[in-house]
């Protein structure tokens, strides 16, 4: 066999790719995976540190969807993708969500029952379980505040060993689980290699052009099948650069998120962990939770009003960052721009989302004050310090399109699954419409922002789709 001929070439190595590669490798196919970033040993970089961002985030996390307001987003870059850097919170996709997707997007054979076995397998491999009740005040603020207000607060399962929070070494990431299994099954993995283009002739991929990022040398590999798994931004951009038309990158779904730094009377901050508690009383409209809170990230959250709020950064052990994430209703897009590696990413926040963000901000401030915070500093320009319930309305009024400082860590929906090629980039099982042998296996395929941490859903859908692929579907 020619050394550059593969049964399947996967572009990207995040959770969707990991599940797909393992299944293909175990089925005896010759599989090549190319990943732009590097293999980083778990625990090598302090979790949520700037050093980790430098090495394991795409563009150090300095990425933004342009709009009014623009929304900062971050993506993992390296073997394992986002699983290497995220908070490890797992949600099994709900029956209601899957049913709504199936109905609205005409996705065949999509239900909780169809995904159940795949979810079971993923949860077993990642040791998904409720974490220990750490009784850290920053974590319990949400739980206690919600209890006092009579709101529903849920402890979210995680894929992590009990040592979670001790530096990240015990996290169950893709590089410690699925990629180990895939490599043992004979899958080949090239790190530090970018796919620049898929060669497509008469609706069929004939090969993938690669660039070695260390040497700049190029190479072409042939694959009977190509799976794009580069994430919701770069998968559609790659397809566009390869000349694919249709509903590719015309949409972008995300969870717009507003943040608040809460200050407590005592030390509360374990800087390498995030709370597993989420207030889901107002879901699917919005969810309240805790975010990474290293001193650097606290300073960043206070930066918009540094003159007024900056002194709190010196008391970072008493501070923690919380968020209100709304279910995205706006519409964005991704457009490959000739001459640039990065695509143009846009997102148009709709009025209803701004309303939900204000509601979310109000509820977040209420629950934090009820949960023991002595004051809170909303993270957007011109926000007032909130020292009690009477200050909440002024903070809400101050949140406008002009002042908002929004971010997201969940991006999806740029190649949605579905049978209607005018709306969907791929069919019900991930095959790109109009192409014979190109598939998507990452967050791009989720039709809309799911209102939950999406990794579990991406993995389950990828497992379902590759099972169908191997069955000849």
């Amino acid at each position, binding site marked *: 066999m020619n050394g550059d001929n593969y049964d399947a070439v996967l572009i990207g190595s995040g959770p969707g790719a990991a599940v797909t590669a393992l299944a293909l490798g175990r089925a005896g196919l010759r599989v090549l995976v190319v*990943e732009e970033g*590097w*293999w*980083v*040993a778990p625990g090598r970089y302090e979790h949520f*540190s*700037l*050093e980790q961002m*430098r*090495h394991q985030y795409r*563009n*150090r996390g*300095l*990425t*933004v969807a342009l709009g009014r307001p623009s929304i900062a987003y971050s993506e993992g870059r390296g*073997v394992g993708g986002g699983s290497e850097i995220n908070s490890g919170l797992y949600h099994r996709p709900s029956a209601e969500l899957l049913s709504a997707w199936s109905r609205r997007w005409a996705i065949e054979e999509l239900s909780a029952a169809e995904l159940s076995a795949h979810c079971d397998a993923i949860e077993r491999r990642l040791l998904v379980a409720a974490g220990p009740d750490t009784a850290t005040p920053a974590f319990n603020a949400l739980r206690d505040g919600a209890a006092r207000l009579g709101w529903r607060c849920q402890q979210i399962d995680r894929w992590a060993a009990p040592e979670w929070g001790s530096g990240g070494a015990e996290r169950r990431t893709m*590089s410690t689980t699925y*990629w*180990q299994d895939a*490599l*043992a099954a*004979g*899958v*080949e*993995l*090239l*790190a*530090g*290699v970018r796919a620049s283009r898929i060669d497509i002739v008469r609706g069929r991929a004939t090969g993938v052009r*690669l660039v*070695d*990022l*260390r*040497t700049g*040398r*190029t*190479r072409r590999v042939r694959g009977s099948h190509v799976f794009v798994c580069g994430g919701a931004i770069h998968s559609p951009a790659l397809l566009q650069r390869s000349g694919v038309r249709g509903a590719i990158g015309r949409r972008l779904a995300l969870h717009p998120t507003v943040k608040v730094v809460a200050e407590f009377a005592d030390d509360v901050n374990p*800087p390498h962990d995030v709370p597993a508690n989420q207030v889901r009383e107002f879901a699917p409209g919005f969810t309240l939770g805790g975010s990474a809170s*290293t*001193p*650097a*990230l*606290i*300073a*960043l959250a*206070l*930066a*918009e009003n*540094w*003159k007024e709020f*900056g002194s709190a*950064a010196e008391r*970072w052990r008493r501070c923690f960052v919380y968020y209100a994430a709304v279910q995205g209703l706006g519409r964005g897009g991704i457009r490959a*721009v000739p001459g*640039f*590696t*990065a*695509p*143009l990413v846009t997102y148009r926040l709709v009025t209803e989302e701004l309303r939900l963000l204000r509601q979310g901000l109000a509820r977040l401030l209420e629950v934090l004050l009820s949960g023991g915070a002595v004051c809170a500093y909303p993270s957007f320009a011109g926000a007032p310090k909130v020292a009690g319930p009477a200050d909440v309305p002024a903070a809400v009024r101050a949140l406008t399109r002009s002042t908002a400082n929004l971010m997201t860590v969940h991006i999806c929906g740029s190649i949605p699954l579905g049978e209607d090629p005018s709306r969907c980039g791929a069919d019900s099982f991930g095959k790109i419409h109009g192409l014979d042998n190109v598939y998507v296996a990452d967050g791009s395929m989720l039709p809309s922002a799911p209102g939950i941490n999406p990794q579990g859903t991406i993995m389950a859908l990828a497992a379902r789709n590759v099972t169908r692929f191997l069955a000849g579907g």
Partner: protein
Amino acid sequence: MPTQTARRGRRPATDMSRTTTGRWSPYTVVARAAGGRAARDLAVTLPDATARELRVAGEAVRDGVEDMPDLLRTGFVVALLVSLVAPLRRLIGLREVERFGTGLGLAAVFDARRRDDR
């Protein structure tokens, strides 16, 4: 293409070499200018910052500009140039450049302080 990162049945190499280091481009000049400016601004924003911390902040901003997505970086450069022209200082450029420099610079200083604490 070298094959040192390709492994069948083994994990790939962990080479962390950056592709931008050591290469000159107009962007590296702009990145240095942005880093220097951020350090100067930060000296006012954070009066207790040490010279070393300001240097760390400046380097973080410089590296940040170099590592931005190329499309955004082009926009950033335009914004930076606009912000240097006095009559245009209040237009689009200044706020975005200042926000970027201040935010990343502050984060770098507090990241350094945290590392020093440990």
